[in-house]
């Protein structure tokens, strides 16, 4: 809404009303951020995350060192933390569900994923934990690949297990379901899957449009 009584300092034309200019700039800022994040609109949060879970996870989020410019090939990199929806699948197996629908929608590719979970053992003890991780295929409900892990635990804390290509493929299809099967004496009570501050999560590195990367020579 140009104001006849004043002049735009920069271009000499009629100045735009200050309030109107502010609205235009705020609208431009919103569109610019959504476009760069490949979002059509701002997300509405479906499942709130507790501050305790967020704090615990952020301490493990290891982005590129501060000030590092994004990848030389100009593709934007993302780090994602997806908190598990946990449910008992049967007496000694816990099912963990992770959702990545936004990534698939915006054509991004998950490059590397790892499961983070908390292990609690009595002080001044050590424990060898045997864990089986089964990845549910998204096509049929039969369990697919299983990986076996042996953890030597000498203190309570977070543990990271790198997930294989099957789990990565499931993430790229938007939904990852893991079955966690602690095996051996006392293993079950050591793996903490409940409680806000110890909610297990998957940490993944994502690249925008990784599939059709053109390598510059």
């Amino acid at each position, binding site marked *: 809404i140009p104001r006849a009584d004043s002049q735009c300092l920069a271009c000499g034309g009629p100045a735009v009303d200050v309030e109107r200019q502010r609205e235009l700039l705020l609208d431009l800022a919103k569109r610019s951020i959504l476009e760069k994040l490949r979002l059509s609109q701002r997300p509405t949060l479906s499942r709130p995350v507790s501050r305790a879970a967020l704090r615990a996870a952020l301490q493990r989020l290891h982005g590129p060192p501060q000030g590092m410019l994004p990848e030389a090939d*100009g593709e934007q*990199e993302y780090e994602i933390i997806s908190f598990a929806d946990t449910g008992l699948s049967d007496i000694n197996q816990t099912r963990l569900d992770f959702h990545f629908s936004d990534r698939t929608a915006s054509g991004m590719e998950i490059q590397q994923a790892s499961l983070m979970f908390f292990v609690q053992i009595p002080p001044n003890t050590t424990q060898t934990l045997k864990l089986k991780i089964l990845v549910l295929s998204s096509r049929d409900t039969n369990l697919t690949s299983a990986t076996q892990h042996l953890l030597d635990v000498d203190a309570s804390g977070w543990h990271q297990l790198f997930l294989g290509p099957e789990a990565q493929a499931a993430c790229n299809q938007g939904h990852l379901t893991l079955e966690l099967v602690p095996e051996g004496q006392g293993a079950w009570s050591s793996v903490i899957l409940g409680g806000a501050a110890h909610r297990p999560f998957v940490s993944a590195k994502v690249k925008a449009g990784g599939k059709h990367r053109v390598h510059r020579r």
Partner: protein
Amino acid sequence: GINCQGGSRMCCRQEFFVDFRDIGWHDWIIQPEGYAMNFCTGQCPLHVAGMPGIAASFHTAVLNLLKANTAAGTAGGGSCCVPTARRPLSLLYYDRDSNVVKTDIPDMVVEACGCS
């Protein structure tokens, strides 16, 4: 670069901070609290074309060109007030699955302006 002050007409950087709380985005953007959406504004008369350019020599080269071509009426037209330095915007936000996402959006914050 020069920051716009008062009635400055020359090419300068206008600071403009968008507080995410003001636009109701503070619930899904965890960090930072806002975005410095600075922009370049102002005039670039021919005698300042290329200033504060990337290097003084660039400015001198442009001036010499103008003198050599008595540029007053050249078809090439004037010079524009554009960003000469920008930095990424680091964002930490929730996506629609309530996943926490961290990314650096390149070239999102204008740090300095100059005449092309």
